[in-house]
């Protein structure tokens, strides 16, 4: 005893921890302690690293859900842009008069539309004469044919008989090589044609455009002289818009007869005039069909802009959205249950640790925060991975199909945000169980 105390005195006082020297007692107890939150985050990441396989399996549900949403949203956004660009090439300055609308929703509608009078050349002439708001008026009629050149064959080619020449402008196509026909040629009924660039590929073995000029192709057995080749327009949803041959309407009439219903194309100088032009055309057409103003019965014709396609496209994609959100919601719920399960296991495994923390002064809300942060860390990580794989998937698909990849920050933030909320919800009960553990019982656990 004496020996020991002697040794003690000989040493310099290492322990500078006497009461008097210590800093003032800490008295502030804010509800939200940043240090405790940071500690919780460290513990969370530490325990996630310590159980890597378990963490990976836990993340699966969340990852699948977020991946699905991000991929679908990104792909559809890309398609949206493609569609918008495509339709704006023809533009919202064009509308049509036709016998049937482009989308027929039921058999009854089909029967009703079939009883209508055909839209005729005279209808187009009257509209062109009377409609002051209209800028360009043209007519077009389509047939689908097989086209041959020597031993080469192109199937399902759209043969488009048009009049007058401004229909090329209304359609938004332009000449790459050769020329379009003259007005007198157009009226003459001669077998001449302007071919879409797909014909070069399918009939002329990818020859340069000028090599097709002067060649004779056979449409439904009849010979036509190629006088021009169009610039490519590209494709939409896998359908080529270049698989087309333009011929004069007079020629079309000779080949297919004049008794088919036409589509009248009307273009206005700017989108703002569209409505006024539509009103005029509607009035003109109603009087031609013998209908008084305000009569509610079937008008006997369809006035349409390209918006019908956009609307159809919009309703199709909104259905895809709804299905995807359903799938995502299910996998997030399942993912949340998995996280809750794992958190309960984690709380049980770490009962001793909880006891230690409580013994040295952790309050209920400290423990609650710790486990909530752990749950949110897992799900937010799953969300982040899901955002990454979702964009990756969208990138691959966009590269395969060929549309622009639009990475949206909003959907990324939303993906991580929603997963975090799932984390809070599924972590709440396990965390509460941990928080209300009795410290004495918890310390006894092994």
């Amino acid at each position, binding site marked *: 005893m004496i020996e020991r105390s002697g040794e003690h005195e000989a040493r310099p006082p290492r322990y500078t921890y006497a009461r008097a020297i210590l800093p003032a007692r800490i008295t502030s107890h804010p509800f939200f302690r940043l*240090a405790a939150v940071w500690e919780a985050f460290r513990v969370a990441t530490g325990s996630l690293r310590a159980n890597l396989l378990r963490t990976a399996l836990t993340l699966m549900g969340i990852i699948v859900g977020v991946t699905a949403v991000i991929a679908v949203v990104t792909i559809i956004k890309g398609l949206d842009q493609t569609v918008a660009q495509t339709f704006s090439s023809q533009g919202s300055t064009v509308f049509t008069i036709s016998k049937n609308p482009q989308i027929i929703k039921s058999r009854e509608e089909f029967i009703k539309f079939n009883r209508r009078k055909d839209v005729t050349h005279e209808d187009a002439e009257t509209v062109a004469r009377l409609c002051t708001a209209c800028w360009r008026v043209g007519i077009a009629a389509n047939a689908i044919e097989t086209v041959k050149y020597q031993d080469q064959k192109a199937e399902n080619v759209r043969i488009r008989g048009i009049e007058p020449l401004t229909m090329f402008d209304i359609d938004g196509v332009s000449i790459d090589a050769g020329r379009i026909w003259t007005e007198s040629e157009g009226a003459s009924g001669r077998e001449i044609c302007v071919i879409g660039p797909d014909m070069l590929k399918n009939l002329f073995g990818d020859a340069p455009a000028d090599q097709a000029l002067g060649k004779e192709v056979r449409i439904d057995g009849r010979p036509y002289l190629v006088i021009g080749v169009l610039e490519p327009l590209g494709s939409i949803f896998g359908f080529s818009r270049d698989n087309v041959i333009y011929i004069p309407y007079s020629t079309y009439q000779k080949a297919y007869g004049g008794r088919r219903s036409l589509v009248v194309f009307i273009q206005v100088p700017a989108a703002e005039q569209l409505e006024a032009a539509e009103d005029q055309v509607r009035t003109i057409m109603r009087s031609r069909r013998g209908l008084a103003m305000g009569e509610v019965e079937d008008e006997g014709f369809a006035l349409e802009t390209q918006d019908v396609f956009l609307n159809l496209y919009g309703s199709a994609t909104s259905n895809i959205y709804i299905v995807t959100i359903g799938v995502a919601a299910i996998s997030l719920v399942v993912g949340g249950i998995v996280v809750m399960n794992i958190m309960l296991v984690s709380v049980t495994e770490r009962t001793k640790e909880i006891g230690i923390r409580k013994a040295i002064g952790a309050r209920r809300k400290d423990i609650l925060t710790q486990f909530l942060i752990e749950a949110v860390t897992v799900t937010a990580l799953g969300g982040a991975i899901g955002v990454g794989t979702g964009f990756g998937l969208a990138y691959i698909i966009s590269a395969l199909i060929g549309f622009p990849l639009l990475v949206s920050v909003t959907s990324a933030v939303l993906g991580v945000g929603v997963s975090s909320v799932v984390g809070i919800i599924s972590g709440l009960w396990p965390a509460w169980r941990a928080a209300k553990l009795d410290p004495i019982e918890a310390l006894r656990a092994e």
Partner: protein
Amino acid sequence: MSDATLTLSPTETVINAPATEVGHDPSMLISMRDIWKTYQMGTEKVHALHGVSFDIPRGEYIAIIGPSGSGKSTLMNLIGCLDTPTQGQYWLNGKNVSEMDDDELARIRNQEVGFVFQTFNLLARATALHNVELPLIYGGVGSSQRHEMAQKALTAVDLTDRMMHKPNELSGGQRQRVAIARALVNNPSILLADEPTGALDSHTSMEIMDLFERLHSEGNTIIVVTHEHDIAERAHRVISIRDGQIEKDERIR
């Protein structure tokens, strides 16, 4: 729960009941008055403590000794504010802790009590330094001050060169010294050790007891709960517990 399973003879009388007065002595660091702790075991009520009263002044080095099942663990849990008495008053550093709720008790444990456990109870994945910082984290101490205080505490237990080691890289004695540093770091009113040498060999045990002696000489109040007489004899005062009551309360130096 072992304390709760003891059977008590109903005819037992209070052997040593000096302080039955209701008031507490404000000069005392710890003042316990007629403390009862009763557990409900099925239909039966088991009294782990019945009518324990004592005072401990500041700066005392005291041992609480008793056989397994005597109620000393229950008493330790009460002193350490891990539990509240069924009946009776407990003042710690002038505060009546006998009627506090969970979070208030957590605060008292954080500020007033430093625990040292038989099995060290360190966090396995955290470094020695981080283990020692933990009470300060829950006390809301800023990180730079926290580092400084934790380093001081580890220096005080001669572990300056082991701060970044994890518990599994340390010997039993070193682990217990980390635990002691953790108990001291928040400058508590009492250092409460539960069988602090129970998991250590005799040589290391002596080192730890020497450390307690030094900490006491530096002004800390130390309470050691043990069933080993040679450990208890290092203290200056020994309270013997038997069958939930104080059997003997004697000053030995």
